[in-house]
């Protein structure tokens, strides 16, 4: 067993060796530019891209013509939101999203607000799900897009995507979902789920960093986005730039592996995750964040009350875990996702996201349980707050003196 144990698979995943093997020939032997139409190097590269496009499409039930390759999910999120806003600005300027979205979506929405968009940020219930009635009430005749993520990156909660898309479509709005955490982990089908646009990324499913995709529906209805990057007109004019051929090949392989192995893998991971979660819940005053029925199989976000968050991370240094999204983890702010579930700053700070993955073993989980329990107990032994709690003092009612 190698230390530290990696339990941060929502931030990124190790590349599967089979993916790396598939990519290697495209670096040196088959290095052509997929846009070179006049010679064999170009055709070989283009053929590889086409095959990968099929693999990616197949995983999500799309047609390969509906897959636009990008540099990753953040770019896909940007293209979907900014591209729809520009393309449909004659129809309306209202976008509905929710407060627990990834920063890539929230920041793109903030950007659009400066350009004249009106954005509704739906709250979530204490379990992390949005209220469908609130969604429907928020829709106006100006609403062009509903942007709600598939699975949350911090708590793993899966939104009722089918119901959301049905509501959006009933009112003539498009439905976009950031499915970066869900694709490859649970069955996602753009037709059955009624998805019009969907962002996802290779490096969250054991593929390489630097490559992702945007699904853009071509039929019923035909959806269009205004290109955000102009140039050679690659990707049917929606995304210019020389295709990252080895990256795309790796993405295709990663999708194929997920499609073939997902069902068994989800079972294995949810069993391990449940073991981890149930063992940690044996600790007093520990809580799972988010809905546990509608949740990604590999994620558990757990709060340990009366434990100081940073101290906990330090005490668990043999475990690579996170207290929230990697994209914002350098800041010391408590997680905005946990806060929007109603957690206090203190409790949000003392929460840990466990993200299991394809290479997680039972032995590692046993070790993680032992280490986490030890760390929590140790920190509580040192904590005056814990002592007061044990003495039955209601800490919420204490008026602390200013100093």
């Amino acid at each position, binding site marked *: 067993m190698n230390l*530290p144990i*990696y339990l*941060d698979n929502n931030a*990124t*995943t*190790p*590349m599967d060796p089979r993916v790396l093997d598939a990519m*290697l020939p495209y670096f*040196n032997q088959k*290095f*052509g*530019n997929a*846009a*070179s*139409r*006049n*010679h*064999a*190097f*170009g055709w070989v590269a283009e053929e590889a891209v086409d095959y990968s496009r099929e693999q990616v499409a197949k995983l999500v039930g799309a047609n390969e013509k509906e897959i636009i390759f*990008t*540099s990753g999910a*953040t*770019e896909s*999120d*940007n293209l979907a939101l900014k591209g729809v806003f520009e393309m449909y600005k004659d129809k309306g300027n209202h976008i509905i999203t929710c407060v627990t979205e*990834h*920063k*890539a*979506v*929230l*920041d793109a929405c*903030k950007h659009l607000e400066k350009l004249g968009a009106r954005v509704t940020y739906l709250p979530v219930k204490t379990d992390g799900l949005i209220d469908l009635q609130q969604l429907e009430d928020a829709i106006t005749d100006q609403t062009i897009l509903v942007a709600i993520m598939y699975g949350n990156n911090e708590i793993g909660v899966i939104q009722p995507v089918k119901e959301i898309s049905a509501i959006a479509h009933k009112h003539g709005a498009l439905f976009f979902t950031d499915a970066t955490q869900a694709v490859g982990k649970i069955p996602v089908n753009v037709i059955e789920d009624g998805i019009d646009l969907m962002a996802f*990324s290779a490096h969250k499913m054991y593929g390489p*960093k*630097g*490559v992702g995709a945007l699904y853009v529906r071509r039929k019923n209805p035909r959806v269009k986005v205004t*290109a*955000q*990057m*102009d*140039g*050679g*007109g690659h990707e049917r004019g929606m995304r*210019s*730039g*020389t*295709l*990252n051929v*080895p*990256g795309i090949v790796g993405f295709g392989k990663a999708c194929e592996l997920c499609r073939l192995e997902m069902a068994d893998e989800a079972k294995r991971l949810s069993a391990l995750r449940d073991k981890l979660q149930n063992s940690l819940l044996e600790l007093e005053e520990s809580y799972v964040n988010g809905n546990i029925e509608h949740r990604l199989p590999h994620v558990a976000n757990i709060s340990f009350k009366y434990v100081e968050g940073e101290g906990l991370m330090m005490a668990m*240094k043999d475990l*690579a875990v*996170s207290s929230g999204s*990697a*994209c*914002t*983890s*350098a*800041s010391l702010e408590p997680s905005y996702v946990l806060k929007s579930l109603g957690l206090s700053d203190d409790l949000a700070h003392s929460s840990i996201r466990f993200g299991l993955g394809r290479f997680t073993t039972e032995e590692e989980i046993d070790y993680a349980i032992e280490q986490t329990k030890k760390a929590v107990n140790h920190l509580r032994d040192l904590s005056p707050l814990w002592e007061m709690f044990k003495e039955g003092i209601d800490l919420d009612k204490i008026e602390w003196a200013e100093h």
Partner: protein
Amino acid sequence: MRVYLDNAATTPIDKEVLSEMYQVMEQHFGNPSSIHAHGREVRTIIEKARKAIAGLLGVSPAEIFFTSGGTEADNMAIRCGIHDYGIKHAITSQLEHHAVLHTLQALEKENSIRLSYVETDDKGNISLQHLEQLLQQNERSFVSLMHANNEIGTLTDIEKVGELCKTYNSLFHCDTVQTMGHYRFDLSKLNVHFVTCSAHKIHGPKGAGFLYINHNIKIQPFITGGAQERNMRGGTENVYGIAGLAKALTLAYANLDNHRNYIQGIKTYMMQQLQQAVPGITFNGETSPGKSLYTILNVLFPETEMADMLLFSLDIAGISASGGSACSSGSNIGSHVLTAIGADPNRPAVRFSFSKYTTREEIDYAINCIKELFNPQK
């Protein structure tokens, strides 16, 4: 024999670059934004890469921003530069890469800017005099002119362009995708605000590049979301791509003079051999070493019945070359660059582009094939 003479489209990766990347791909998979050990070790890889690149270019690491490639870097510079500085007038030339031209034209179409084209001659040289007029006649402009043309290789005197832009308080973006790693830039002395790089043009990986932004320039991010690249470019970093990019540029600089002499020799040799092999051959754009990028040779063949089939015939013979930019080679519209310099549309043009891996034997082989095509042995 398979001869690759399309290095302006993309280049094979250098073995050393690949082994550097392989190591990162195999062993360092963390997310650089994660604060645990897996994250910190890849953060170090990225910052080392940034420092190496900055050192080569004579700038501060804080001026280097990693992107997904040249097109994104060009778009970021142009769109954010123009928008964030409230610029209403841009100057470019008809010979620019589509990443620049189409971006500026999109901004013109949405009425964000007026767009002027600086005059160019039949060799693809821009008129500095006309550029000065345009700068004079308009309030602060955004100037986007490439260092070397990707189809015909003609070089632009970016030192002079930079001085003019400075005189008229304008912003200068230079698409250096074809010249980065082929010439030494000292950006601390050049009056340029933005330059771009794409790793796969210099034996690095596809999907990685950077934008240099002069420290006096403050722009908002182009791709938003996440605090990566010091809040300037959202998205998990392509760690191995960035490691490969830095290695590729480091190798390019380490052997720059040798490679330059070697490749210039290949180009001169091919020009001589072609002229002997096919009477009536001329070249598009500048060809002398000081005025032309040494990796590119654009050949204008004599009029022939097989004009449409020339590239196809070359490919059958095992020679990979291009009619123009790969980025638009699928379209049936002729090259916008050749149209702009007024090249005879009845004569077929082929761009041959070289790298450090190109050999004289390969050139000889290509010359023989071309000879055969134009003067078939009866």
